[in-house]
């Protein structure tokens, strides 16, 4: 054994030998409960503090305690660290740390590892008392080496046992040490990060985890013949490092909303966890309702009483809320609904990403139920979208759906620290008497807008109803009155639409147009734009447009489409493939956004989508676009 532990020694002694690289994609994969995600989050946070761009993507099994050493039980995290801003998880992993060979197998067979990738594999299984495990381990290692992977066996358990009683709880910090050493991350920042993680516990816990970290760094230094540095440039601005769900929760606080009503559901719940911890400290309240329907109805009740509320959910919960959403539409009660999308239909893939709910959000609830649908496209956008959503909801008396997804929910990306603006907040509940003669639904003939009569306003007494009603909120069975209400509620969308700006086009220079416009929405923005940059580097005339508002869509899209020979949406949902024998243009089901754009603009917009439960990769977009352009004969 040549890896003597000298904990006080500065670990980064090999600085001369470091290879400078522009970016790295790293994964840490373990059984559930072994702390791979905490390790990766810490690595990302340390790199971010050094000024690197980062994007983390969590790999979460569906079960809390899946069987140990199983392919399906793989729990982990991908960390992409770059010199520049990083906007997505990238293509394939270059270095992976695996706590057993089984959790690794799934990542290999899913094609998530780069050919020849470096694998650091826990070696304890080689001497396990169960010969079947030993055989499986040996076989996997041999197979991986045959396939060209650079496998290093690492005595994680053995080394950690020297420092802590339960190595299973300590390996992740040992691995953090190895990784910080390999990528030249600052040990002082790393120790600070460890202190921050375990800050609630006593100094002993922090010290033992720092010891694990130092041991890992020392082991890496002594045993791995390679190390890198990823040049970093510290931002001149303060940056926030959070994941999408935390950004949403911070947005709820910043929006001035008082109440969040929710029911536990993956992958939305972590937003409510964080809110539950902090919302009361700023005078807010998280209500865990008895079910999704009640959560939505509770939020509607609070909003009706004058305090605009939010309900946060995912797919199945979103379906359950539709009836209450319809009531809010009919009665013109402001409401913010955050839907952190996951794979569907039904229970689907609870921990996996999918953009399958756009049409449900736009058309959900029976009858004509116009509502606003927004889709944040970055972690920063998760924060600001909620503030905008609250404002639109109250200004227009509408339901605003914010479509995040499982990818954004756990992804971390630094963004400039928001500077609080009192205009983000809702005004105090209006308790002034209602002017005589005014009606609760005094629909403006042009905009459809009416003023709200909150309880407490003298002279405004009326009974709100989900039945068709006239301007006085009286139940109306007259056909003309029904249409008057439908018209007013629909006009509000047009009134909002008139305020929206045309989306920017990425990659296009000076309105030159091009051969292909890629169109996306939501979490795929970073991957699409990275693909556009690469394709333009290859000389292809490709650009992209990303929609933040799916309903209503801003003006200007028609003109943008006209500048490009072809257009294609890139989406993380299902669309029929023309390669299938039965599929043709008479029956092909397009992706959600493609369908919306085709019907509105009467342009032959193609789509490419996948619903593999994984974030879309820039390289896959590049491949698809190259092929599409070749087929259309416009490639240069």
């Amino acid at each position, binding site marked *: 054994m040549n890896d003597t532990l000298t904990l006080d020694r500065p670990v980064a002694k090999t600085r001369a030998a470091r290879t400078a690289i522009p970016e790295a994609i790293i994964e840490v994969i373990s059984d559930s409960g072994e702390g791979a995600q905490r390790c990766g989050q810490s690595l990302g946070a340390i790199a971010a503090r050094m000024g690197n761009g980062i994007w983390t993507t969590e790999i979460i099994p569906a079960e809390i305690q899946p069987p140990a050493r199983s392919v399906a039980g793989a729990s982990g995290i991908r960390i992409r660290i770059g010199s520049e801003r990083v906007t997505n998880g990238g293509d394939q992993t270059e270095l992976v740390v695996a706590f057993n060979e089984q959790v690794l197998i799934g990542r290999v067979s899913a094609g998530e590892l780069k050919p020849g990738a470096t694998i650091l594999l826990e070696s304890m299984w080689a001497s396990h008392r169960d010969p079947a495990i030993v055989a499986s381990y040996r076989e996997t290692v041999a197979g991986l080496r045959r396939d060209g992977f650079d496998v290093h066996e690492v005595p994680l358990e053995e080394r950690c046992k020297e420092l802590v009683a339960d190595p299973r709880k300590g390996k992740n910090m040992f691995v953090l040490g190895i990784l910080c050493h390999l990528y030249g991350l*600052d040990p002082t920042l790393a120790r600070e990060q460890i202190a921050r993680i375990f800050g609630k516990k006593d100094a002993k816990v922090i010290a033992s985890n720092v010891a694990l970290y130092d041991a890992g760094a020392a082991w890496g230094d002594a045993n791995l013949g390679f190390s890198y540095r990823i040049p970093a440039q510290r931002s*001149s601005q303060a940056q926030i490092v959070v994941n999408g769900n935390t950004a949403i929760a911070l947005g709820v606080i910043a929006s001035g909303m008082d109440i969040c009503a929710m029911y536990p559901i993956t992958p939305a719940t972590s937003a409510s966890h964080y809110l539950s911890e902090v919302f009361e400290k*700023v005078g807010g*309240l998280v209500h865990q309702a008895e079910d999704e329907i009640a959560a939505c109805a509770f939020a509607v009740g609070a909003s*009706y009483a004058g305090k605009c509320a939010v309900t946060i959910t995912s797919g199945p919960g979103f379906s359950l809320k539709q009836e209450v959403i319809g009531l809010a539409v009919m009665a013109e009660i402001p409401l913010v609904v955050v839907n952190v999308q996951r794979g569907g239909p039904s229970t689907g893939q609870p921990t996996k990403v999918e953009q399958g709910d756009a049409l449900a959000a736009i058309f959900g609830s029976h009858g004509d139920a116009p509502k606003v649908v927004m889709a944040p496209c970055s972690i920063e956008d998760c924060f600001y979208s909620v503030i905008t959503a609250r404002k639109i909801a109250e200004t227009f008396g509408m339901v605003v759906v914010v479509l995040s997804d499982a990818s954004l929910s756990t992804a971390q990306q630094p963004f400039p620290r928001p500077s609080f603006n009192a205009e983000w907040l809702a005004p105090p509940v209006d308790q002034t008497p209602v002017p005589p003669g005014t009606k609760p639904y005094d629909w403006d003939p042009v905009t459809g807008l009416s003023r709200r009569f909150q309880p407490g306003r003298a002279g405004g007494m009326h009974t709100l109803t989900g039945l068709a009603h006239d301007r006085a909120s009286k139940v109306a069975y007259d056909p003309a009155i029904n249409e008057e209400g439908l018209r007013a509620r629909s006009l509000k969308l047009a009134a909002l639409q008139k305020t929206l700006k045309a989306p920017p086009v990425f990659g296009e220079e000076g309105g030159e147009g091009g051969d292909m416009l890629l169109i996306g929405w939501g979490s795929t923005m970073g991957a699409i734009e990275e693909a556009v940059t690469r394709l333009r580097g290859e000389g292809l005339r490709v650009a992209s447009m990303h929609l933040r508002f799916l309903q209503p869509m801003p003006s200007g899209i028609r003109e943008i489409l006209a500048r490009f020979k072809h257009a294609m949406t890139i989406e993380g949902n299902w669309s029929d493939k023309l390669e299938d024998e039965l599929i043709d243009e008479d029956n092909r089901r397009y992706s959600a956004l493609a369908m919306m754009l085709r019907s509105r603009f009467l342009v032959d917009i193609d789509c490419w989508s996948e619903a593999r439960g994984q974030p879309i990769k820039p390289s896959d977009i590049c491949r698809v676009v190259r092929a599409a352009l070749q087929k259309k004969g416009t490639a240069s």
Partner: protein
Amino acid sequence: MSSSLSHCVIKLHEEHHDLEDYQGGVPRWCNGCGDNAILAAMQRLCSEEELAPENTVFVSGIGCSSRLPHYMKTYGFHGLHGRAFPVAEGIKIARPDLNVFVSTGDGDCCSIGAAHWIHALRYNINLTVVLHDNHVYGLTKKQASPTSPRGLKSNTTPYGALLEPMNPLTVSLGVQGASFVAQAVDWIPEVLYDIMRAAFHHRGFSFVRVLQRCPEFMPKAFDPWLHDPQRTMLLTHADGLQLSPSLASAYRNQREHDPINIDKAREIASLDDPIPVGILYRNPDAPCYEDLRHAGQLRSPEYIRAGLNRELDKFTVWPEDDVLATRAA
């Protein structure tokens, strides 16, 4: 709110309301419908308690019962079938200053909204709730409800209802956190009013089941009890119902019952003949959800700014961080 005595006097004068101030649209219930008695009790209660109509909200679901808010001249929320409770909870938590009432029916509360009902009892939010229980779906034209008697022939049970009826009183009293459970009948308006008043004065979730006649679809359902006062057992207590002499002589089947006694309350709740009328259970000390959650706090922009910044601090990477100097590279 009022800062001086003179101000109070003026406010009192301004805030005086007559019965008509609470009377909204003309009820469109059938002639002889028990809902009318409940409406009358509600309007009288609002008037006698001088509730400002603008600070009072009647929330309902869907069904005959749930039309009640339309006939009140207060704020009303006639929402979705079964969802009156969560809506009312949201209103009260957002605005503890409002008087919030709920009108619900045996279908609305005990069937489609049953989950919300159980949990509303648990939350114990300060709401005054009336379950209009006529043992049948009326608005959809005669289908069996969870409280329909066995054998009831309805449009969905043409050969007679097969299941034992649910007892909303025993269900309510089985829920931990329930703090006020009472039963009234529409045909004894004086007791109905007294119970409604006690329910209103109880701070917590006051659940009043009112047995209510449906002359259209259940014309004779309550006849045996109407015709024989002995089959109605009035629960009396110094902390409960006190009967007027005329009532006491008409309804001689009386039982002294202390509403704090949950075991006796559960025993009485199980009776179906005679039917108990009065306050079965009242626990003024049961904690209210709005108190546990410190609902209705006033917040200034400065307060929110400070709170948000405190949270942002946890996640901030500051540019002037001089730890950079020690960076390994």
